[in-house]
């Protein structure tokens, strides 16, 4: 198990390095320059040139990349062009807010997905199955930003139960309850699609296990359906489910971006959206790097848990 973990960690290095190249290259493919974005349509050519020179943006791209990577290796993500604050603190601040939203959305998605999936699998082709899978298909297909807008219209404007956006109330906000109250709608909007995907995966893997001979054998020995389901079927189906849950959590971290913009949630998605508009390269790079890093780490964690739960995984890789 330890050698498996070590091997996976070593493999992270080229993956992350590759991510930095892709991220850096992609950003500089977007037309437009930060000097123009920040100094506006009325700035002079000379002012913009001086601004670019100041930030080293007049250097060739490979050199810019090298300088940037060198700083990144020293945990220095640079200074935001627009905000003049260290990127690391801006990204970290925003990341915590995203993590909170993604975690609540993931929790919601997994609980709802597990429940629906198990209900559907155990009542295959019944009304409950069709209802659950219909819901899952809808939830997966609806774009999160559209769902967010609909939730706002229904539950914040028509019936004014929840706030329309933000993370806290402007006046005397910030208590745990206040934050939770602001979390409900964005978490629902962000969690819907993963809930649908988890539900379908759970249903499929539970059904797969249900068809195995040992389930028949258990039934023949007179075990109750609930014992068979929760002591034997679900644990056997769980490694697959876990992988999907982990992937969904990873996608959520990057994918709540749209929801964040709709709900003015001060997370990395919102930050990324804004920074792309301003061509604030250090912040865009910082966010992308952070997200890919977290995504890769999350995958690693899921794989390691998978290996811990299912001995076949670690032996097959070690062999």
């Amino acid at each position: 198990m330890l050698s498996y973990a070590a091997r996976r960690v070593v493999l992270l290095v080229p993956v992350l390095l590759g991510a930095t190249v892709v991220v850096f290259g992609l950003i500089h493919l977007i037309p437009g320059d930060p000097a123009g974005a920040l100094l506006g349509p009325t700035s002079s050519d000379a002012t913009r040139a001086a601004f670019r020179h100041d930030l080293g943006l007049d250097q060739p791209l490979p050199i810019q990349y090298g300088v940037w990577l060198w700083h990144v290796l020293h945990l220095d993500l640079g200074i935001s062009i627009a905000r003049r604050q260290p990127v690391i603190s801006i990204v970290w601040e925003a990341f915590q807010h995203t993590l909170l939203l993604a975690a609540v959305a993931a929790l919601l998605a997994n609980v709802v997905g597990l429940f629906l999936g198990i209900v559907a699998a155990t009542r295959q082709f019944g009304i409950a199955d069709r209802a659950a899978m219909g819901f899952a298909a809808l939830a997966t297909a609806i774009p999160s930003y559209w769902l967010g807008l609909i939730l706002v219209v229904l539950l914040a404007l028509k019936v004014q139960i929840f706030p329309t956006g933000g993370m806290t109330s402007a006046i005397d906000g910030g208590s745990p309850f206040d934050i939770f109250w602001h979390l409900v709608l964005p978490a629902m909007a962000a969690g819907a699609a993963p809930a649908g995907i988890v539900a379908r995966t759970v249903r499929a893997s539970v059904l797969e296990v249900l068809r195995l001979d040992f389930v028949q054998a258990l039934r023949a020995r007179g075990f109750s359906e609930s014992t068979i389901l929760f002591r034997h079927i679900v644990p056997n189906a769980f490694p697959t489910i876990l992988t999907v849950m982990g992937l969904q959590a990873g996608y959520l971290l990057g994918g709540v971006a749209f929801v964040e913009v709709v709900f003015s949630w001060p997370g990395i998605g919102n930050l990324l959206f804004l920074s792309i508009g301003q061509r604030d390269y250090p912040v865009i790079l910082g966010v992308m790097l952070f997200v890919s890093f977290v995504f890769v780490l999350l995958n690693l964690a899921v794989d390691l848990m998978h290996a811990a739960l299912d001995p076949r995984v670690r032996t097959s890789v070690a062999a």
Partner: protein
Amino acid sequence: MATDKDNAEKAHGLDRRQFLTASAGLALVGGPALSAFLAACGGGGTSSGRGGTLVYAMEISDLPSLDAQTSLSQGSTLAQAIQPMFEGLTMYDRHRDDVVPPAVGVLAESWTLSDGGKTWTWKLRPNVTFHDGTPWNADAAIWNFQRLYDPKSPQYFLLAYQLMSIYMPGPITAMTKVDDLTFTMTTDIARPLNEELEALWMVSPDAVKKLGNDGFGLAPVGTGGMKFSKLVPGQQFEMVPYDKYWGPAYKLDKVIVRPIGDATARINALVSGEIDLAVELPADGLAPLKSAGKTVLTSVRPHTWEFIFNTKQPPFNNKLVRQALNYAIDRDGLSNNILKGTAIPMTQLAIPNSEWFDDGLAPYTYDPTKAKKMLADAGFPNGFDTEWWTATNGSGELQPVPMAEYIQSNLKDIKVNVKLKTFEWTAYLGEFFKSAQPGIGAMQISYGWSWTYWWGLLFSTEYLPPKGPLNNGHYTNTAIDPLYDAALGESDTAKRATLVKQIQKIVWDDAPYLFCVHGLNVRGLNPKVQGFINAKEWQFQFQTIYKT
């Protein structure tokens, strides 16, 4: 539009006549008039209310540095929000809504000009302190201008200079302290500094020295009637009244500013009551606001939205063609159908009620028959094909794509087939800066007009590309140059306006632009917000506002 405004005025009890009387004569002189006016206002019966916490939404998605001298990186959005904390030597008098506000003395009490208008002697307002208790005086003033202008001073802040350079185009060649409350400023050529310096707000030298430029952006210190009290990074900042303020006290107990970049989100937050005041609201959001009982105010501001013709290339090197197209578009339709009353047709470059508005100038009417005939006279009886570029979004851009498509359909009626090419804002700016290239018929842009030198940047041959990026279409008419130079050096406001009107007359006839609309301020208010003055300018002031 008028109805909304009138209703709103009735609703918050602002007596317009009383207001106008109080502010009469203000346009003529600078400093002393402001305090007289403010005193008159403070004694008025309707303005006795006070108190309340106002939540204001900015139209950006983030809280950038709150340093007044870098704030214009966000257009006037951030400047508007931090305005209660800061003041300049002069500022627009946003206490009045009858005309486009003139620049009046604020931290300067008065000024005199010498040396043919090149040397300005500023007499500073006495007994003014920054929020950290340090005094406002000639040393502080010179320190501030050195921060922006003098690369040799230790406090020189290049980024601030870069961001503000458009607001202070001429170099300051010398500054001298005369006494504690007097200093002189010399420029290379005579220019109307009282209007050009209105957006340069003064920061506490002591606070910048203590906190550094980056730290100052997180805890700003100015001389305004409200002082900074709290920052929640990325989410909001708060201001409370400054008890040693030299001027009339702010009426609110607190102002909370939140960044809500998405226009729909601003409308929603206003409808649900989470915020009290928001600006830059899109046309489609006005109906829900009104049906939720919110107040919607519109007012003109110095803004123009146009396509700039590439006058270097055929067919737009032909004045007749440019004029013909100006007769072919339905500006009323554009304002009322596409923008639902959040814009007004452009009848000249200057907006109504501004000092530059020329009653004698005839607008381009909507007359496709005339346009067709003019095109035929110009040698294009069967029209022509052309490619026009526009952004899809951006500062002051209203709804560029639907607007451009509407114009496209208008022009199709006179057989001018426009192929539209669209870009995201920042990418578009990159293209715009290159100025109109061969093959591009026209490029769309919107401008805010507040200063005399704007007329030079846009139309004087001195600022042709590549020197000036604003004259995107390479428009050249040397008759404008002497008029512009004379206007810039003219210290008398009325005489200066006369010269500007002459420039405008030439430009209007030459039609280097497809003149389209003036976008309006669209401001949404919680009805509990009282004392709001709907200034005909990009920004409004917070001093008279309170909540019931």
